[in-house]
């Protein structure tokens, strides 16, 4: 498996894919850091404690980025050979962006309520609840992930101009993403310092 990944992806590709995948995850984590930091400080009146809390969120964001990155590396292995290079990078990044977006949206209670109500509504038509559950999951995956991803892939493969524009946007985010990566590492250092110091 490692050999397959090594053959398929050059080091720069891996680095950029990680940067792009971790960007929205870190952005979401930083929103939570900004939100929780004052609560953590008010709770204990200890700034170092609030930094510790932030460090846990940032470290977890790095861990989660690594897991998602690993998953998309595997997805990339089954992609057509002609998508190698920048195109594959754009495809994988686009799909990861769509799933990340849904990961965030799915947390909103109103959306969860809508889905629950939908399931209840469908069960009125005498379907078995488990069938309805899989039906809804299937529809969700289709409309929320597969269709947008399909559209993205279509444009990325057919429209060079679109690929270039998307690539340019991602390049602009690289610096920010590197900064986030630096914050992740700072989080690990803070956490290690707090827990390894006597």
């Amino acid at each position: 498996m490692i050999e397959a990944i090594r053959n398929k992806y050059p080091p720069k590709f891996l680095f950029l894919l990680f940067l792009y995948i971790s960007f929205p995850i870190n952005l979401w984590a930083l929103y939570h850091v900004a939100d929780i930091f004052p609560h953590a400080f008010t709770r204990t009146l200890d700034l170092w404690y609030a930094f510790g809390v932030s460090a846990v969120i940032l470290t977890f964001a790095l861990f989660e980025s690594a897991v998602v990155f690993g998953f998309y590396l595997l997805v990339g292995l089954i992609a057509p050979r002609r998508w190698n290079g920048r195109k594959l990078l754009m495809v994988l990044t686009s799909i990861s962006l769509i799933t990340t977006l849904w990961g965030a949206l799915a947390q909103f209670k109103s959306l969860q309520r809508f889905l629950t109500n939908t399931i209840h509504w469908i069960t009125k038509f005498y379907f078995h609840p488990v069938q309805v559950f899989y039906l809804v999951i299937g529809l969700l995956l289709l409309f929320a992930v597969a269709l947008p991803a399909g559209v993205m892939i279509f444009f990325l493969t057919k429209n060079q101009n679109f690929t270039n524009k998307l690539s340019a946007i991602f390049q602009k985010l690289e610096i920010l993403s590197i900064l986030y990566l630096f914050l992740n590492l700072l989080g690990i250092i803070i956490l290690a310092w707090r827990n390894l110091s006597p």
Partner: protein
Amino acid sequence: MKNLNRRDVLKLLGLLPAAYALNQFSNLNISGNPSMQNVLILVFDAFSAHHLPFHGYGRDTAPNLTKLLDKAIVYHNHYAASNFTTPGTASLLTGAYPWSHRAFNLNSTVTDEFENNNIFSAFSSYTRAAYTHNPYAHNFLLQFKKHIDHLAPKHELYLNYSYIFDQLTENDWDVVRFTKRRVIGPTPYPLVSSLYLNQILSHFDARQKQTVEDQYSDLFPSGIPAVDQNYYFLLEQAIDWTYAQLDQINQPFLGYYHYYPPHDPYRTRIEFEADFHNDDYPLINKPLNVFSSGMTEDQIYAKNTRYDRSIRYLDSEFYRLYQLLESSGLTDNTWIIFTSDHGELFERGMTGHTSEFVYEPVIKIPLIIFEPGRTERLDIHTNTSATDILPTIVKITSQNPQAASEGQLLPPFNSASLDSRPIFSIDARRNPRNQPLRTYSAAIIKDRFKLIQYAGYPELDTGMILSELYDLENDPHELNNLVKSHPQMLSLLTQELNTKIEEVNAPFEK
């Protein structure tokens, strides 16, 4: 056999005194030598003296403990130095008030001065063992760990814990616990920071808890005892573990064991589930104040009853430990100190110990000393403080006195009268630790009077200090505020408290 000559007989006669001395030494009873006696401190978290029948409570919450009092010293007016774990435990372990050790914010630790000036450092010639279920108390054990020979991690006696979140981050339990809810949930916040793994990890946590629940739900139908609602434990297991450790470690020992019950969530074993059900025990209706949260009387009554049932549970388990110690002979040469870090309150629209209140139920705690060789009960009614325990056990076991202790030798070990001494209890959780005390609730108890001062809170008008004065002898439930009818006493106690606050604030004033 060679015949003994006169010189040999004289030589043997010369050895007689040495033989006599040796014989005396071998007969020496270890329990008679104070410096060889063990000290065992048993802390039951959030245990209010107001819920004990021998302190006047109307429910028989502690029948077993009551039986044991026939050979104990019972302190009837013993006060914690604060109203929650962090400062309360710190004062017990350092003999200093919160304004000195500065551990008065949630999750804080004591100042560096106390790292080598605490109960464990005082017993340097002893084997020192410690354990606590309570993570906030565990912070201090970690801080003093170089003086503790046997320190078990808190999760040693948890039935469920996460390797990554709890074991790898031993120093940072509260940080990780506080953040974990925000990262993976379940959370009171609508959103969590994890976008992909939150469902998987929270499901894993829930499954781990479910496994423990399935195992013990018959014994604890209303829920297994838990720290922070999440980490299950059994007091039975903790008691067995404590006894096994005490039985193995070298003597003399100092043992500090800080158990979680009867702390919230007030869970109890099946045989106590029905206790006090419909017993019509009256809950006294007390006046609200600015910090009351507005819980209904029914809610308070229900929690109060659950708390009493959890005291029955700990009473039964403490009795079992006492019997184990007695059967092994350890009670013959061990001072057993039974106490708490702070109390618990069920009144004025509030329950628990998370408010700014310093009313009697949340600061008055049990103190029972089982002295080796004592055969009759001794009742002490003098006001005493948790800060007194350290200097007392140091003195009675002839250990090194700790310079920073603000406590006094407890009666009956102190020949001087402590009747006119002021006792303090202070909550300054909303005051930064490196700044002078400006936002606090403080109680000063002197003779039969108690003054409560609330200062610096945004809930009060700017610059306003709210004072309440009670006569504890005639009004033990603090129902009648005497601020207007006893201006002289109010002035006297206010002056004494303010002088003390000014004195402790001096090093922190710019």
